[in-house]
């Protein structure tokens, strides 16, 4: 009979593995850049705007295949970008809907810190919303968690206990806090992009 701790570990590993399959590496020329997440099986990818520094970045899937990507959406103010690669039947993540993620909720960031592919960092939501007095965050809605984001995590998905995307990791505030653009902002940009299609 497994203990609760063992069950917890099994769930954590499952979320990490499911998420690893649906993230990509994004490179601009020879310099590695960051992470992106697949949001549709036909190759629609979300990442940070600051990760995309060329018109045709290179995307590497978890299965190792390389693609040239088109930039189909860009929101500099919210630091989001949407890329598209020509593929099909790719594993994709879904955005969380329903009860907004809250302080105390468990989240995990899965990305490529310092080029380490598919690394995960877990913790809880510290705070959500727009009421921030910390200067880098003031005035915008963010999802902040006590996860350890590092260079290379930019554009990574922050997922909840069921593997649904609650934000896109964008910024590091000190060694113990990860800041993500909320899934609602991702939804808004995707709606714009999909309309244009």
């Amino acid at each position, binding site marked *: 009979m497994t203990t609760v701790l063992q069950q917890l570990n099994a769930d954590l590993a499952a979320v990490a593995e499911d998420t690893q399959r649906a993230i990509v590496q994004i490179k601009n020329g020879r310099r590695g850049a960051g992470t992106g997440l697949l949001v549709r099986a036909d190759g629609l990818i979300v990442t940070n705007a600051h990760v995309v520094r060329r018109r045709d970045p290179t995307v590497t899937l978890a299965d190792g295949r390389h693609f040239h990507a088109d930039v189909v959406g860009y929101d500099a103010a919210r630091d989001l970008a949407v890329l598209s690669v020509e593929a099909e039947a790719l594993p994709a993540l879904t955005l969380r809907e329903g009860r907004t993620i809250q302080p105390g*909720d*468990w989240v995990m960031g899965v990305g490529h810190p310092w080029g380490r592919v598919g690394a995960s960092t877990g913790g809880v939501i*510290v*705070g959500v919303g727009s009421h921030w*007095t910390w200067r880098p965050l003031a005035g915008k809605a963010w999802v902040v968690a006590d996860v350890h984001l590092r260079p290379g995590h930019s554009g990574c998905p922050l997922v909840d206990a069921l593997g649904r995307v609650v934000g896109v990791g964008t910024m590091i505030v000190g060694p113990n806090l990860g800041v993500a653009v909320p899934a609602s902002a991702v939804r808004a940009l995707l709606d714009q992009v999909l309309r244009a299609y």
Partner: protein
Amino acid sequence: MNVDNQGVLAQLSQALAATVEAVGQSVVRVEGRRRGAASGIAWAEDGLVLTAHHSVQRDHDLRLGLPNGEGIDAELVGRDPSTDLALLRAPGGVLQPPAWANVDTLRVGHLVLSVGRPTAALQAGLGIVSALDQAWRTPAGGKVEAYLQTDVALYPGFSGSALVDAEGRVVGMNTSALMRGMSLTVPVATLREVVETLLAHGRVRRGYLGVGVQPAKLPPQAAEALGQKTGLLVVSIESDGSAAQGGLLVGDLIVALGGEPVRHLDDLMFLLGSDAIDATVSLNVVRGGTVTPLSVTVSERT
């Protein structure tokens, strides 16, 4: 979505968020300094709120941010710098205190949450109980009933936040200012004691001798006779103070008070607690190489 059908991780997440939200009804924002707000915990329905002394840098114009988003004024009832606690009073009937639990329900390794309100919204952190130990003295001379250390990161504005157990009960108040660089929790038993004292006297009363001291090594013969290596060298004496009236002289080395050895400054601070006030106690000093017994009546620090 039925949470019970989800895995343990999802249930845990749900439970953590629910716990934070429930305790959050008793957690307020405290605006008492220019640098930034801190957190506070509702102590009683009559409007008493507990926060960290170092977060309240002025005695007036104090404001609280309530869970419902409103702001109300509060006044300072008293402070105890030795345990970094400050007691405020806001209008009654607005806040409800949380459920409390004593620290003896905790074990090392237990999950705990910090719940604070440095902005309008609640914030939280998760960690485990890292260390539990017996009563200890803070460097400022305060007595804390139990040593409780966790690995919960205290973000800006989290001094005065609540430390919450898995049952949703508050086991103490978090502060970053008791020991430099460490996040410690003042347990409920100490909160109760200090609140009672602050309500009765507006401050924590301390004994006073009227003497200036600094740590010093004892001469070898005295050290061997006493079994201690250090004492406190008297460098100044307040005229007409307790020490002066007891016959203490500049150059004496204080080695014991009330039968308890005095090796370091915090030994003396601890022995000069409120219960020492007005007590006549033995004061042993090393004078001219020999141990000389004196007697002093401890007065009160004003």
